[in-house]
């Protein structure tokens, strides 16, 4: 079925999520609900200090406690190094570098016994001076977090990581000299937590031959499998197999894009105890022992010509890397995207330094650096526009990206609905009327770019699909994609049903087991609809071709003249010449010399890895959007109330408008929390608010009515024209709100979250400048 003007049967429909029924009845099995016979419970002992030498550890009392089946410390585990920088070990032996460092672990018949056993473990520490400020940690003579770590040209001991984050395009120095206006500011963003309602956990189980099954909530089953196999190799189990089985996942948002220490600990405990071991995090552990969003100190300068044309963007960032390295340290590779390609800016320079400290360390989180960078960039766009005396709406329109453009990072923009998004937001906010009142009410906007057609972060950006059709017309779609609640299984089913001419209820999607499912790089970069969707569509096309070949014989028609709609194969020339799909299926194999109707399709988009200069067409297409906000600022309390919120997104094509809205509502709500209320508070390396009372997530009473606007640019490369939408909703929220606050009361907030205290302090400063 081609042509975007045709009536779709399943695509574009508000079809309920396929697994919603098992979730509303409480039948869905999450990792918390999973039990296997003989299962033990694992618990972890954490460091009480942010930086200390481990002098000695005594686990003898813990080992003797009835019910305890295994006790492990860094002294008695094999050398497993994990993490992108390979600087982390599951249990620490020589020193602890943060208060989430895992020091010992226990497996017992009961979680309470395991907890009691932890209290019986004696660890002696020698406290070391600690660092909590990355700018301090960069200085000459600062205490070293990892003594063996050397860097720079002279290979001297340093807390600065050896990471190559540097992007240069054009000549920023020249552009600065020739700019009519230049804005220079420092912005700061801090840690926020994913707050998945389902806490983390896993269950490790070895079989009699030491092959491992990991029941997991990972977003990267194929890559996690590889990580676990590396761990097994370090344990002397090099050729053993690993099977990753996903339970229903209670929220992801990027938190499951890396493997954690607790997973290796579960594997080690299970191996030692010769019994399955389950580890489940408490909410407190979820807050302090999982990895939050990457903080950043952002020094940014942008310039423009007299007419508002952007001339350059010059950014330096310092990233608090915490004690160990996870995906947070790679966020600069994604920050480069808005830096080089949000609006047209010909000259770009970006340098980012990641610095070890004794704080917590960061992971991927919805947007993966994009919200952080966009906050700085699109807040400063308003600052620059004001300097130039140009309305920020006109300033954005003047510099808006356009289809066909190649950006300084060599991104090839094909479809681009940015102008349409800016335009609709301006209309809905009644921009010309409402802007500039400065009476406590204000409006603001901000835009975003994100990858929309996969992202070649690894060597492969592929996803495999296998489709098999049975005698009765049930279509089994086995995909490598991961559903973590966003609805990928439903969207895949819609795409297959549309392509194959069957009903949505005929399609069953399986995605949970690496023994069955094909390879996929993971649910990240908002790639699932695009990549897994294209993969499934391609497999469905192959199945359709097989079916039409078989039907051609019985209908006496050539396959090109046949089509399938609503479970019926028919001749396009003479629709009365038809055959029910089931009949065709049985004719295919239930005969001498028959064959099954099955196909596989591995789709790897035609995007590029970034080269050594971080340039290349990272994605096949890019998602654009604009958010517009109207706020009211209470000058007595500093409270910011959102009166109106509009989220306009260029989505290519909405395969399922209802699920798409869910992504925008959810993403924007997370982004509003990022802008106004959320902060993981660390003091001297300790998380001070590891609970929902003190960590301020938005409730149903707080969320404003968000109006979504869907712009369909019908991307030629997306499945039925679709682009990604999982992350974009979280990207432009903070600058849109900050810009609206400035319009309301004339204060420029550069430090997230924008709490009432900060607003009041800014208003006070404005009234009485020092």
């Amino acid at each position, binding site marked *: 079925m081609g042509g975007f003007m045709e009536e779709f049967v399943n695509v574009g429909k508000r079809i309920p999520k396929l697994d919603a029924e098992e979730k509303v009845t409480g039948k869905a099995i999450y990792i918390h609900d999973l039990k296997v016979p003989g299962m033990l419970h694992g618990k972890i002992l954490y460091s009480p200090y942010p930086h200390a030498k481990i002098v000695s550890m005594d686990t003898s009392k813990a080992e003797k406690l009835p019910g305890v089946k295994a006790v492990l410390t860094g002294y008695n585990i094999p050398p497993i190094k994990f993490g992108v920088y390979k600087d982390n070990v599951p249990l620490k032996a020589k020193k602890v570098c943060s208060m989430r460092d895992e020091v010992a672990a226990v497996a017992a018949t009961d979680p309470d016994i395991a907890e009691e056993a932890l209290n019986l473990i004696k660890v002696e520490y020698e406290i070391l001076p600690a660092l909590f400020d990355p700018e301090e940690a960069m200085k000459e003579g600062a205490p070293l977090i990892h003594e063996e770590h050397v860097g720079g040209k002279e290979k001297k001991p340093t807390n600065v990581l050896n990471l190559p984050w540097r992007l240069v395009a054009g000549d920023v120095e020249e552009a600065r000299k020739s700019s009519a206006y230049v804005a220079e500011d420092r912005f700061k963003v801090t840690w926020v937590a994913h707050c998945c309602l389902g806490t983390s956990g896993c269950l490790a189980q070895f079989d009699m031959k030491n092959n491992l099954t990991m029941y997991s909530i990972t977003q990267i089953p194929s890559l996690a499998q590889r990580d676990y196999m590396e761990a097994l190799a370090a344990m002397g189990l090099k050729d053993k197999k690993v099977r990753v089985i996903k339970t229903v996942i209670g929220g992801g948002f990027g938190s499951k894009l890396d493997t954690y220490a607790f997973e290796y600990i579960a594997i080690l405990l299970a191996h030692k105890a010769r019994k399955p071991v389950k580890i489940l995090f408490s*909410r407190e552990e979820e807050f302090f022992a999982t990895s939050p969003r990457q903080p950043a100190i952002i020094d940014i300068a942008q310039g423009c010509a007299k007419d508002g044309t952007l001339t350059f963007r010059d950014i330096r960032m310092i990233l608090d890397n915490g004690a160990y390295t996870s995906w947070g340290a790679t966020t600069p590779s994604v920050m480069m995207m808005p830096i080089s390609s949000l609006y047209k800016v010909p000259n770009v320079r970006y340098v980012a330094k990641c610095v070890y400290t004794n704080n917590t360390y960061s992971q991927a989180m919805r947007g993966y650096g994009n919200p952080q960078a966009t906050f700085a960039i699109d807040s400063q766009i308003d600052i620059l526009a004001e300097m130039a005396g140009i309305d920020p709406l006109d300033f954005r329109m003047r510099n808006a990206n356009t289809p066909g453009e190649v950006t300084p990072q060599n991104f090839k923009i094909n479809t681009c609905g940015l102008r349409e998004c800016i335009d609709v937001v301006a209309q809905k906010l009644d921009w010309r009327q409402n802007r500039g009142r400065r009476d406590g009410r204000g409006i603001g906007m901000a835009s975003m770019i994100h990858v929309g057609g996969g992202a070649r972060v690894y060597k492969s950006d592929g996803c495999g699909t296998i489709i098999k059709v049975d005698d009765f017309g049930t279509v089994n779609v086995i995909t490598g994609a991961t559903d973590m*609640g966003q609805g990928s299984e439903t969207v895949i089913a819609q795409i297959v049903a549309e392509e194959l001419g069957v009903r949505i209820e005929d399609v069953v999607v399986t995605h949970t087991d690496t023994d069955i499912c094909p390879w996929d790089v993971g649910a990240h970069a908002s790639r699932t609809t695009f990549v897994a969707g294209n993969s499934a569509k391609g497999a469905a096309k192959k199945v359709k071709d097989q079916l039409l070949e078989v039907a051609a014989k019985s209908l006496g028609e050539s396959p090109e003249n046949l089509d399938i709609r609503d479970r019926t194969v028919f001749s396009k020339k003479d629709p009365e010449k038809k055959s029910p799909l089931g009949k065709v299926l049985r004719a295919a194999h239930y005969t001498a010399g028959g064959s099954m109707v099955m196909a596989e399709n591995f789709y790897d988009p035609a995007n590029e890895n970034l080269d050594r200069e971080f340039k290349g067409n990272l994605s096949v297409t890019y998602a654009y959007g604009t958010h517009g906000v109207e706020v009211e600022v209470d000058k007595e309390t500093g409270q910011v109330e959102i009166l109106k919120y509009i989220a306009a997104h260029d989505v290519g094509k909405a395969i399922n408008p209802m699920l798409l809205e869910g992504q925008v509502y959810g993403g924007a709500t997370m982004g509003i929390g990022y802008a106004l209320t959320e902060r993981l508070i660390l003091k001297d390396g300790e998380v001070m608010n590891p609970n929902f009372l003190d960590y301020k997530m938005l409730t149903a009473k707080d969320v404003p009515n968000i109006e979504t606007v869907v712009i369909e640019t019908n991307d030629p490369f997306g499945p039925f024209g679709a682009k990604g939408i999982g992350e974009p909703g979280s990207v432009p929220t903070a600058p849109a709100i900050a810009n609206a606050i400035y319009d309301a009361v004339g204060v420029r907030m550069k430090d997230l979250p924008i709490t009432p205290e900060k607003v009041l302090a800014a208003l006070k400063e404005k009234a009485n400048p020092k």
Partner: protein
Amino acid sequence: MKRTISFTLNGEPIELEMEPHLTLLQLLREGLGLTGTKEGCGMGECGACTVLLDGKTVNSCIFPAMEADGKSVTTIEGLTDVQGNLHPIQKAFIEYGAVQCGFCTPGMVLSAKALLDENPKPTEEEIRGGIAGNLCRCTGYLQIVQAIKAVSGQ
């Protein structure tokens, strides 16, 4: 020392012996194998553990199971009727996209039920207030509010 407790669970009388220190959540999930009710925080702050006690919402993770003695408890498993048909609230949640990861859903559905049983035609503000004790990270709440509005026929 174990104590005896008897109460009505999802419409059926039940009597059992239990350790007196158990929370209602522990009794339901571990004692009775009813894993539909979830633990999200263990501190009564997120609402994932919401069950109905004599029709009113309680955070079962901090509610002593012994206090359910003589009362009627409704969990998510009790919402479908004897033929297995979904409750209208469950149907609406499915139809309006109010379910993503689903972890908050059982608690959210029960809070919605308690709200509508007491106030069949709530305003939007009352709906938001009725589920304010149930945190959700996936949906941004708006489709949940729409679902509840739809059930109330508004």
